[in-house]
C-alpha cells in the first residue's frame, strides 16, 4: 500500500510571531518533497512538529489517513518518522556504531550489547554508503562531513517510512553529497516519504519531485519540480505584497565620506571580506544563515579573533582586541541572539540600557542612579518601549520591546556611536514593531551614523538599506545599490556558488 503523510492545517504561534499559519499539504510514498522559503518562513518549525519536539497550537499530522498525536519525540520515532536536524545529535565520545544504533542497541542475554551484531549491522550500512569509516571509530574524531553522514546513517538505520532532512548538505563535500543523493533515490524506490529542506536551488531541482514554498508561516504554493523553474520559485518565495511600509520611510539621503573600511578580513568562517561603510549610510548585508555575516561583524567588533586583514576607522588603522576597545572607538553591535547575547534578562530596563556607559553615569565613586534613570526614561519615551517603568525586568518584555532596549542602549545620550552594527534586528518581532525599527535605522543614518544592517529577510534588507552586500560561504558574492536591487537578483547571489558569481561580476 502506498504511504501518505498529511499536514492538516497546522498553526503555531510564538510570542510576537505566527510561525505557522494554517499550513496544509500532503506527500505520497516514493516522492521527495522539497520545502523552500526564506529564513523564518516556518520550515524548521514544521519539522519540529513532525518530530514531536514541539506541539502545534492547531491542526495535526496524519499518516495513512490516521491522525497522530506526538506527546514526545519518542512517539514520533515510534510512528516511523526520522528527522535529521541541522544540529547534530551525536555523542562525541562514543563509536560510530553506537551512535548509529543509539536508541536500540542490539542486546543478547541479560542486557549485554551484542557487539558482533552491532558491528555487522553498522558495516552493512557503511557498505551501502561506501564511506571510509570503521564501525569502531570514535565520532568526535571524524571530520564534520563524516559526522553528518553518521547522523544520516542513524536515520537510515531506523528504516523509517518518513525521513526529513534539514539542510543536510551544508557541512558536506561534493563526494558525500553524491552519496546522499544516490541514497535518497534508493529510498524513494523503496516507497519512503522524503522531506527535504534546502536553500540550494541546484540540489532541489536535482532530487525533488515536488517543491512546497512557505512564506511568513503560510503555504504559498506547491509546484511539480519538472514543471517549474528557478525564476518562478524565487517569485513565490518573495511574494508580492510589499506594503507601503518602505515607501513611507523617512530617510535622509545625505551619505558622507568613508567611515569604516574593511580589507581582506579573514576570521573563523570569514574568507577574505572587503567593504566600505560611509557616514549616514545604511549598508545591508544579505545572505542566508551561515553565510558568514555574523562572524564578519563579530571579528570587526573584537568579539572573535581576526586571523588577518585590515580595518580602517575614520582614516585610522584599527584592530579591536575586545568589544570594550571597539565601543571606546564608537563601534557598537546589537547581537543576533537577544536573549543569549544581548540582554541581562534578570536585570531592569535601566540596568540594561546603562551597561556600556557605566563609567559616564558616576557621581564620585558611586553610580548616579538618577542619571541612569533619565537615560532609561529617554529611551523608553523615544522608542515607545511599552512598560510601566524602567525598573521592570528586561526578561518580562516582548521581543520587540527587548530589541528597542538594545537599540536604546547604543544610541543613548551618553554614547558616541559612529558605527552601529545591527545583526537581524527584526528577528522574532511583530510587523508593527518591525516598521518602527526600520524608521529607527533610517533615523540613525540621518544622524550621520554608519549603520550595518544584517538581515535574512530579503524584502526588508533591500528596501531599508542604501546599498546591499550579499554574502555566501564567508565571501562577498555581490554588491548592489538599492535602486538596482531586485529580490530575484539578491537571492540569486545569496544562493549561487562563488565561482558563478565571480563570473557574473566579471
Amino acid at each position, binding site marked *: 500500500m502506498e504511504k501518505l503523510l498529511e499536514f492538516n492545517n497546522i498553526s503555531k504561534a510564538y510570542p510576537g510571531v505566527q510561525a505557522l499559519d494554517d499550513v496544509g499539504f500532503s506527500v505520497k510514498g516514493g516522492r521527495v518533497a522539497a520545502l523552500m522559503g526564506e529564513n523564518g518562513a516556518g520550515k524548521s518549525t514544521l519539522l519540529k512538529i513532525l518530530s514531536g519536539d514541539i506541539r502545534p497550537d492547531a491542526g495535526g499530522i496524519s499518516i495513512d489517513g490516521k491522525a497522530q498525536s506526538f506527546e514526545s519525540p519518542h512517539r514520533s520515532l515510534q510512528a516511523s518518522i526520522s528527522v535529521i536536524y541541522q544540529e547534530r545529535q551525536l555523542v562525541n565520545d562514543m563509536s560510530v556504531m553506537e551512535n548509529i544504533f543509539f536508541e536500540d542497541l542490539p542486546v543478547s542475554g541479560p542486557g549485554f550489547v551484542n557487539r558482533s551484531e552491532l558491528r555487522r549491522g553498522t558495516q552493512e550500512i557503511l557498505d551501502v554508503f561506501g564511506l571510509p569509516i570503521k564501525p569502531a571509530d570514535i565520532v568526535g574524531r571524524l571530520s564534520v562531513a563524516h559526522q553528518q553522514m553518521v547522523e544520516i546513517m542513524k536515520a537510515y538505520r531506523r528504516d523509517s517510512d518518513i525521513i526529513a532532512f534539514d539542510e543536510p548538505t551544508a557541512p558536506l563535500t561534493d563526494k558525500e553529497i553524491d552519496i546522499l543523493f544516490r541514497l535518497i533515490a534508493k529510498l524513494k524506490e523503496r516507497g519512503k516519504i522524503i522531506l527535504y529542506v534546502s536553500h540550494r536551488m541546484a540540489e532541489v531541482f536535482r532530487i525533488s519531485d515536488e517543491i512546497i514554498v512557505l512564506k511568513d508561516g503560510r503555504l504559498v504554493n506547491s509546484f511539480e519540480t519538472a514543471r517549474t523553474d528557478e525564476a518562478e520559485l524565487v517569485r513565490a518565495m518573495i511574494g508580492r505584497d510589499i506594503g507601503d511600509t518602505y515607501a513611507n520611510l523617512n530617510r535622509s539621503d545625505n551619505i558622507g565620506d568613508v567611515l569604516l573600511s574593511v580589507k581582506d578580513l579573514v576570521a573563523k568562517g570569514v574568507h577574505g571580506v572587503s567593504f566600505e561603510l560611509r557616514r549616514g549610510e545604511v549598508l545591508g548585508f544579505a545572505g542566508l544563515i551561515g553565510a558568514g555575516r555574523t562572524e564578519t561583524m563579530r571579528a570587526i*567588533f573584537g*568579539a572573535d579573533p581576526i586571523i588577518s586583514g585590515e580595518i580602517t576607522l575614520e582614516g585610522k588603522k584599527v584592530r579591536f582586541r*575586545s*568589544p*570594550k576597545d*571597539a*565601543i*571606546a572607538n564608537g563601534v557598537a*553591535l546589537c*547581537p543576533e541572539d537577544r536573549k*543569549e*547575547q*544581548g*540582554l*541581562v*534578562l*534578570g*536585570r531592569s530596563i535601566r*540596568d540594561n540600557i546603562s*551597561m*556600556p556607559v*557605566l*563609567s559616564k553615569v*558616576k557621581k564620585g*565613586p*558611586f*553610580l548616579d542612579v538618577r542619571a541612569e534613570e533619565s537615560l532609561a526614561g529617554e529611551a523608553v519615551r523615544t522608542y515607545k518601549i511599552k512598560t510601566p517603568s524602567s525598573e521592570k525586568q528586561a526578561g*518580562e518584555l516582548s521581543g520587540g520591546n527587548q530589541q528597542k532596549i538594545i537599540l536604546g*542602549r547604543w544610541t543613548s545620550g551618553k554614547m558616541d556611536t559612529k558605527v552601529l552594527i545591527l545583526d537581524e534586528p527584526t528577528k522574532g518581532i511583530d510587523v508593527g514593531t518591525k516598521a518602527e525599527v526600520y524608521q529607527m535605522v533610517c533615523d540613525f543614518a540621518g544622524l550621520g551614523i554608519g549603520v550595518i544592517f544584517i538581515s535574512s529577510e530579503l524584502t526588508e534588507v533591500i528596501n531599508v538599506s542604501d546599498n546591499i552586500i550579499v554574502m555566501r560561504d564567508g565571501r562577498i558574492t555581490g554588491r548592489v545599490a538599492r535602486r538596482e536591487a531586485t529580490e530575484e537578483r539578491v537571492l540569486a547571489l545569496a544562493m549561487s556558488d562563488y565561482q558563478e558569481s565571480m563570473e557574473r561580476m566579471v
Partner: protein
Amino acid sequence: MTKRINKFLRSKHFSLVVLLVMMIAFFWAFSKNHSYLGLNNIRNILNSTVIYTLLAVGGGLVIIAGEIDLSPGYVGTAAGAVMAALLNSTGLPWLVVVVMCLAIGVVFGLINAFLINELKLQSFIATLAIGSFIAGGFAYIVVDGKTLEIKNDAIALIGTGRIGGFVPYTIIISTAVIVIYGVILAKTKFGRCVYLCGGNREAARLTGISPRLMSYILFANSGMLGALAGLLYDARLKAGNLTGTNHYVFPAITAAVLGGLSLGGGNGDMLGCFLGLLIISGFNNGLVVLGVSPFWQNVASGLLLLLALTLDYLTKRGTKGGRAHGKAAGV
C-alpha cells in the same frame, strides 16, 4: 513610600526577617531567664558570625558573578599558619606580616582564576584542588603539623581585644567588611558589573565589560578575604593551627544561599547575605543556649542548607506561577 513598603514586603529580605524574628522569638521564649537575648549572648552570636561573614562576602561575590570558590577557608588556614610562622621566626613588624599574608590569599585567588579562565577548568574542581590539597597542604607544611603559638601583642589585641571592654574588634572588622562590600556591590560600577557578568556573561562582554578581568579580581578578592578570615581566626586563638578555617566554607556558602544568592549567579545582595549569616549563627547559638548537644548542630546546619534550597525552589516556582498569572490578567 507605600510603593517601597510594598516592594519590601514582597522581597526575599522580608521573608528572611520573618524567619529571623520567629527564630529569635522561639529561642528567647525557651531559653533560661530569656538569656538568648541578653547582651552577652547577642555578642556571642555576632562573634560567631565573624569568620563566616568574611568567607561569605568573598565567596558570595564570586557566586553572584556565576562561579563558585571552595578554597577561601583553606587559604585562610594557610595564611594564618604563615602569619604564625613569620611572627615567630622573623622580626618583621606585625603589619608587614599581615599584608604579606593577605597577599598570599590574593595569589591563591589568582591561581584559581588562572585555572578557570585559561585552562577552562570548572571552578568547582579547580578551587577544590587548590584549596583542600594545595593550600591545605601548604598550611600543614608551614606549621610542620604543630600548633604554633602567636606571641605578638598587637595580633592578640586584634583577636581578643574589645572596644570599651565590650565590643570585640573582630566584630567591628567583619561588620565593616560586609558594609563596605555591600555598598560596593549596590552602588558602584564594579558592583553592577558583578551582577551583569553573573546574569549574562556574553552580553556583558559585548557591552565592553571584561568578564575575565572581573573573574580574576573576584577570585583574588575571595582569596584575600579568606586570608583575612584565617588571620582573625588565629589571632583569636593566639595560635596558628592545622585546620583553622578549613571547615567554615560550606556553612558560609549555605548562609549566602539562604540569604538569597542563587548558585547560577546574577542574584542576591549583602543585606540578604547578612540576614542569612545571622540566621545560621543565631540558630547554632540557640541550640547551645537550649543545651542541645553540639553534635546536633551539624545535623541542624545540614538541614538548614536543604531548607534554604527548598525555600529557593518554592519561591522560584511561586514567582513563575505569579508571573504567568499576571500575564493572563493582562498586567
